[in-house]
């Protein structure tokens, strides 16, 4: 049951039902009231009309001497006491004298309470009306009868009334009919509401089902969007964009994992192949030494790769980054350049240092890694005899680190993907120089984590520029 009311469709329907019920009930009540009032008004008019007819008949049988005079109250008393022959009254008034049930009855009392005229069809135990303070008339309804009570200023009081049980029954029937009609209308409304709610929620349902299929791993699926640009279509667009980004991120992650395992496979293969070869037969110590050396080279490659992967993983995790401290990029670059001088000598490359103070807030260890990756990259790739310029400065853009060489440059097609993880310009593995294919990716990640950006230009010679605003 709880589950039922958590459903939006059911909740919508519930509210709808409540509002519709109030509306229909209000309308039915209004209609009932109007009908009832109308009936009462008709009855009252009929009663008054009947009284008029009676009086006209009373005076018609024995007309007054002067037609234009209003009869005096004594005359009226007299007439009421002796209404005359029944036959002189119109047929519709005969019941007043002959008795029987139904029809309109009349009763008149004198001021002392003695009856002047009580019609034969009047109900038993009819009492004179209670005198009214202001002498006005009032309609009273009791015992299925509606009566017009009136007390004259002279003291003559009258009751004109009739049985209204028939009307009441009719009114009850009308009420019942209204309730029934209202109920049917309500149910029909509910049905319509259910259908409408279902129709309105159907796209959401579709979106939900598609989304759960995507969540289950079907990453290529997308939500179908009709081109109506309504709220749900906009939601669909938002979700599709999210899925697009998510799927791209997962794809990148998958490729990264595949690439990482691929990079690890080759050194593992070398170690396996070399050790199996070594163990197959007795060998000279020199051969064992060579094989062990090969294994060590492979293992060192694996270590470099694993370390790079760890650095990347740490850089990807915001929590493991250290608090930024004030440091100078020039000092860091000096340290790294000193460290890499032997590598430069090995490749016969001159490193020109143009280091002006470049203060910066960041993690000196990570920044040193950026300088090291860019510099060792520049030392390994160009032909020997080249010159590499290592430069730090501060300009309008911010703090700048620049590593440029005058080597042959990099083909334009490789430039956009140069910072991708495991991307190598020549699509070869070539881990030969301890290059894991992650150096530039690591540099990029670190620079971006410092709020900076890194770019490469290559024409005659290659230039890497990291700018920290």
């Amino acid at each position, binding site marked *: 049951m709880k589950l039922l009311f958590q459903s939006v469709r059911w909740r919508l329907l519930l509210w709808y039902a409540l509002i519709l019920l109030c509306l229909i009930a209000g309308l039915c009540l209004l209609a009932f009231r109007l009908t009832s009032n109308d009936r009462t008004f008709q009855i009252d008019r009929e009663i008054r009309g009947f009284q008029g007819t009676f009086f006209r008949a009373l005076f018609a049988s024995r007309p007054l001497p002067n037609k234009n005079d209003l009869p005096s109250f004594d005359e009226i008393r007299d007439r009421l006491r002796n209404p005359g022959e029944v036959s002189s009254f119109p047929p519709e008034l005969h019941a007043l004298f002959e008795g029987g049930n139904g029809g309109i009855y009349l009763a008149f009392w004198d001021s002392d309470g003695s009856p002047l005229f009580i019609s034969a069809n009047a109900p038993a135990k009819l009492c004179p009306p209670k005198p009214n303070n202001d002498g006005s008339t009032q309609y009273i309804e009791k015992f299925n009868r509606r009566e017009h009570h009136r007390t004259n200023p002279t003291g003559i009081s009258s009751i004109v009334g009739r049985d209204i049980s028939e009307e009441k029954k009719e009114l009850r029937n009308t009420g019942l009919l209204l309730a029934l009609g209202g109920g049917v209308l309500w149910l029909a409304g509910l049905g319509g509401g259910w259908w409408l709610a279902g129709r309105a929620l159907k796209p959401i349902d579709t979106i939900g089902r598609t989304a759960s299929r995507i969540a289950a791993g079907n990453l290529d699926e997308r939500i179908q969007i009709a081109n109506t640009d309504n709220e749900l279509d906009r939601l669909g667009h938002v979700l599709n964009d999210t899925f697009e980004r998510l799927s791209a991120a997962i794809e990148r992650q998958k490729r990264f994992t595949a690439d990482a395992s691929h990079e690890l496979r080759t050194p593992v*293969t*070398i170690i*396996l192949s070399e050790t*199996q*070869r070594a163990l197959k037969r007795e060998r000279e110590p020199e051969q064992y030494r060579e094989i062990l050396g090969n294994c060590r080279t*492979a293992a060192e490659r694996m270590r470099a790769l694993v370390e790079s992967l760890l650095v990347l993983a740490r850089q990807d995790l915001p929590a493991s980054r250290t608090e930024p401290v004030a440091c100078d990029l020039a000092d860091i670059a000096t340290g790294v350049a000193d460290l890499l001088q032997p590598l430069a000598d090995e490749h016969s490359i001159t490193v020109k240092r143009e280091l002006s103070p470049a203060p910066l807030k960041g993690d000196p260890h990570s920044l040193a890694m950026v300088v090291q990756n860019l510099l060792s990259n520049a030392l390994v790739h160009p032909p020997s005899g080249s010159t590499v310029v290592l430069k730090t400065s501060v300009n309008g853009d911010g703090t700048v680190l620049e590593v440029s060489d005058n080597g042959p440059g990099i083909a334009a097609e490789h430039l956009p993907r140069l910072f991708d993880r495991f991307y190598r310009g020549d699509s*070869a593995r070539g881990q030969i120089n301890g290059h894991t294919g992650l150096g530039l990716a690591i540099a990029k990640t670190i620079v971006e984590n410092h709020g900076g950006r890194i770019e490469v230009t290559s024409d005659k010679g290659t230039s890497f520029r990291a700018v920290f605003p």
Partner: protein
Amino acid sequence: MRLLVIEDDPLLLHSLSEGLREELYAVDTAADGEEGLGKARETDYDCIVLDGMLPGIDGWELLARLRREKKTPVLMLTARDAVPDRIRGLDAGADDYLTKPFDFEELLARLRALIRRSSGLGASLLNIDGVEIDTAARLVRSGGEIVSLTPREYGLVEYLALHRGSVVSRTELYEHLFDESDDTLSNLLDVHVSNVRKKLGAGFISTRRGHGYSIE
């Protein structure tokens, strides 16, 4: 048996070629696709060990191009073990597939199987007139006794035995027994043949003058 190993990682290339040479194969090497394709076109190798990821022409491309001309058995080595990659390799014409890291013994067994299959033989044991050649153990037995043969002599016997009944020319023999780094004179072949005849009987290898050698 002469093999071509195409692998761009110098360490792995060295390890594989050395290992295979120790298994009495004549091994040529190539470090990229271009060089590999050139060698594969030039020489009829008994089998080619091909790495998938190569600079320049990659392994699949190389295979597709080679298959337009030759049916040399190819064993692909690759670090990718996803099913689509394997299908791609086999569809491009690879005869077998091995995922890195692999067991060296398995590589050897698969190479033997490929070479055997390409010469139309089912089992690794060949029996020729009481001389038993075990291609898996690389041994020759005569009357139950192991006959001591040098690697070259064994290679000669195995190659002729795998092509039993047909005449193998001296050039062909030379091509399949010596790798590219060998500059041995071709008359050395006659020395090996005569040594084998001494060990397994004079009639074991017959000479077709002007054509070559054969094992009947």
